[in-house]
C-alpha cells in the first residue's frame, strides 16, 4: 500500500513537472512546425546559458526542429574557442538532438561566420528555405545592397507557401530606446513585404522582447534578449502590443495550418507573452 502510494506520488510529480514544462500557449500538435527564436545571444555568459537551459527544457515537451537566430550570434572575440563557448556549449543538448539553427548576421558578427556549418547559411549572406507550409527568408540587414533587394523580390514572388516569414537583425519597427525603428530599411523592405504577403517579420538588435501591433497587415516581433539585455529599455508607444524588458527571453512558435501560435519565455521560464496569428488576420 505504502509502495503503491509512493509510486503514485512519483508519477504525479513527474507528470506535474512535464506539464509545467509544456508551454501553455502552444497546442503542441503532432504534425505542426515547431521552432524557437533567439536574438543577440552570443555573449558566452551565464544569461545565455540560462536561456539555453530553458530552451532544452521546452524541447523535452515541445520538440522544435529548428532555431531561428536573429543576429549578433557572437559578440567580442570570434576565434574557434569562442564558437564553442558562445554557441556549441550552451546549445549542446539541442545540437545533439538534431535541432538545426538557421542564422542571420548582426552587426557584431563577422561576415566569415556565414561559413560556420552549424549556422546553416551555406556561405550566403541571404537565403531562403522552406519547412512544411512555411517559407523563411533570411536577410542581411547590415548590407541591404541592390542585388539583395532584387533577390528578395524574386524569391518572394516565387514563394507559394501559406506562410512567409522573414527575419533579419535590424528591426523595421521597434520601441527599443537604444535603437528603435530602422526607418530607412523599412522604406525599402516593407513595400515588398506588403506586396508579396509576408505574414511575420522577426528581428533583434534592440535587447528586449516586443510584439508590435500589426503594421500594414504584418506582425513584427523584436526578440533580441537571448543573451544580452537592456533592462527597462522599452519606450511603449501606440504600436506596442506587448513587451518585456526585465529579463532575458526567447520565443517559441508553432505553425499549424492557418494558425501561428507564439509564446515569449523569460529566463526564469515564465511566459511573458503569447497569442495566435491566423494567416490573413491579426492576433
Amino acid at each position, binding site marked *: 500500500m505504502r509502495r503503491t502510494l509512493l509510486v503514485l506520488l512519483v508519477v504525479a510529480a513527474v507528470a506535474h513537472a512535464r506539464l509545467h514544462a509544456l508551454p501553455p500557449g502552444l497546442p503542441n500538435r503532432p504534425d505542426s512546425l515547431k521552432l524557437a527564436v533567439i536574438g543577440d545571444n552570443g555573449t558566452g555568459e551565464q544569461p545565455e546559458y540560462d536561456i539555453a537551459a530553458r530552451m532544452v527544457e521546452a524541447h523535452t515537451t515541445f520538440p522544435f526542429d529548428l532555431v531561428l537566430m536573429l543576429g549578433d550570434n557572437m559578440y567580442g572575440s*570570434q576565434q574557434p574557442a569562442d564558437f564553442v563557448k558562445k554557441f556549441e556549449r550552451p546549445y549542446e543538448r539541442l545540437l545533439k538532438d538534431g535541432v538545426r539553427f538557421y542564422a542571420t548576421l548582426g*552587426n557584431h558578427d563577422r561576415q566569415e561566420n556565414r561559413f560556420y556549418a552549424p549556422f546553416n547559411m551555406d556561405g550566403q549572406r541571404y537565403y531562403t528555405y522552406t519547412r512544411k507550409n512555411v517559407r523563411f527568408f533570411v536577410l542581411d540587414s547590415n548590407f541591404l545592397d*541592390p542585388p539583395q533587394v*532584387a533577390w528578395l523580390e524574386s524569391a518572394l514572388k516565387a514563394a507559394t507557401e501559406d506562410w512567409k516569414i522573414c527575419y533579419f537583425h535590424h528591426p523595421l519597427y521597434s520601441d527599443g530606446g537604444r535603437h528603435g525603428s*530602422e526607418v*530607412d530599411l523599412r522604406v525599402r523592405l516593407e513595400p515588398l513585404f506588403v506586396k508579396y504577403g509576408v505574414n511575420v517579420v522577426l528581428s533583434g538588435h534592440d535587447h528586449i522582447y516586443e510584439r508590435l501591433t500589426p503594421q500594414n497587415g504584418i506582425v513584427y516581433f523584436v526578440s533580441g534578449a537571448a543573451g544580452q539585455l537592456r533592462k527597462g529599455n522599452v519606450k511603449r508607444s501606440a504600436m506596442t502590443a506587448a513587451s518585456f524588458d526585465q529579463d532575458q527571453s526567447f520565443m517559441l512558435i508553432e505553425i499549424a495550418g492557418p494558425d501561428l501560435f507564439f509564446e515569449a519565455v523569460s529566463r526564469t521560464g515564465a511566459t511573458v507573452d503569447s497569442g495566435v496569428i491566423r494567416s490573413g488576420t491579426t492576433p
Partner: protein
Amino acid sequence: MIRALRFAVDHYLVVPFGVAIGLVWANTWSESYFRMSQAGSFAINNIGMAFVLAYLMQEAVEAMLPGGTLHPWRRAMLPIVAAAGGLIGSAVVYQVYVISLADEPVLAVGWPIVCAVDIALSFLVAKSIFRHNPAAVTFVLMLTIATDAAGLWLISRRYPSRDVYPLALTFVIAAIAGAIWLRRAHVRSFWPYLLIAGTVSWWACFWGGVHPALALLPIVPFLQHSARKLDPVADHAHGRHQSGGHFEYVFRYPVQVVMFLFGLLNGGVLVRGFGAGTWAVLTAAVVGRPLGILIAVGLAVLAGLQLPHRLGWRDMVVIAMAASSGFTFALFFSTAVFPVGPTLIQVEMGALATVAGALLAAAAARLLHVGRFATSEAR
C-alpha cells in the same frame, strides 16, 4: 535670387543648408524623408555628383597649368607626402577603433570613408586662419586634393552595384580615346566631350562596378583649359574662364544645386542612429589624419625635404587640423561604401561630425598663435 545664391556659394553654405533641412526632416517625418532620399539618391549620388567631381577636377587641372596656383608639380611633393601620412593615420586609427574598441566587424570595410577631406571647407578654414600666408593655403589645397584623389581611387571599386561586368571598363578607354579625338579635332565646346565620351564612360563605370560618379574624371583633362588661381569657394569666373564654352562657367550654379540636393539627400540621418561607426569616423578624421600628416611631414623633413617658406611646425599643426574635416566628401564616400541601412547612418553621422575639425583647427591656431591669431612677437 542670384545674389542670395552667390552669397551661399561664396560662404560655403549650400551643402550645410541642405544637410540642415535633411536632418530636421529625417528626425521629424522619417518615413517621408527616407522615401524621398532613396528615390532621389541614384540620380544625385551617381549622376549629379559626376558633374560636381568633374567641376572640382577641372579646377585642379587648371591650377596645375603653368601660371596656376599648383604649378609646378614639384611643389606638391611635401603635401603629397603629408596626404599619404594622413591617409595611413586615419585608416589605422579607424581600424584600431573598429576592431579593438567597437566590436563591430561590420564596420571594418568602411575605412576608405576616412580618406575623404572636404576641399572647400578645409580651404575656407585655411583661408580664414592664414589670411596673409598664401603658402599655407596652397599647402592645404594640395594636401586635400591629393587626399581625395587617393580616396576616390580607393572607393572606386567599392560601389555597391548590381551585377558587375568588369569587361565593361574597357569602354572607359574607348571614352578617353573619343575625348582625345575630339581634342585633336580642335572641338572647343565641352558638350561633345560630356555627352559622347562622358556618357560612354558613365555606362562603362556603372556596369564595370566602378562608382559612376567618377566617370567624368578621365574626360575632364581633355576639355579646354586655361591656368587659374584655385579657389573652390569664391573665385568667380573671369577672363578666359567666363565663356559659354567653359565647363566651369556653365556649370558653376548647376553644380551648387546638385551639392544642395546631395546634402539634403544624404545629410538626413536619425540622431539616435549614432554608434561605433560615428565615433570611428570622427576619431580617425580629427585624431588619425592630423597625427599621420605630422608624422609623415616630420619623416620627410628628416629625409631632406624642406618645409615651405614662411611655414613652421606650429603652422603645420594647424594645417593638419584644417585638413581633418571630411564632411561632404566623407558623406559621398559613405554612400559609396555602405548601402542603405543603420551602418550607413552611423558613418554618415561621423562624416557630419568631422566638421568639428574646422573648429579644432581654429582653436589650435588660437592656442598656438598661428595665422590671424599670431602675436606681433610670433610674426
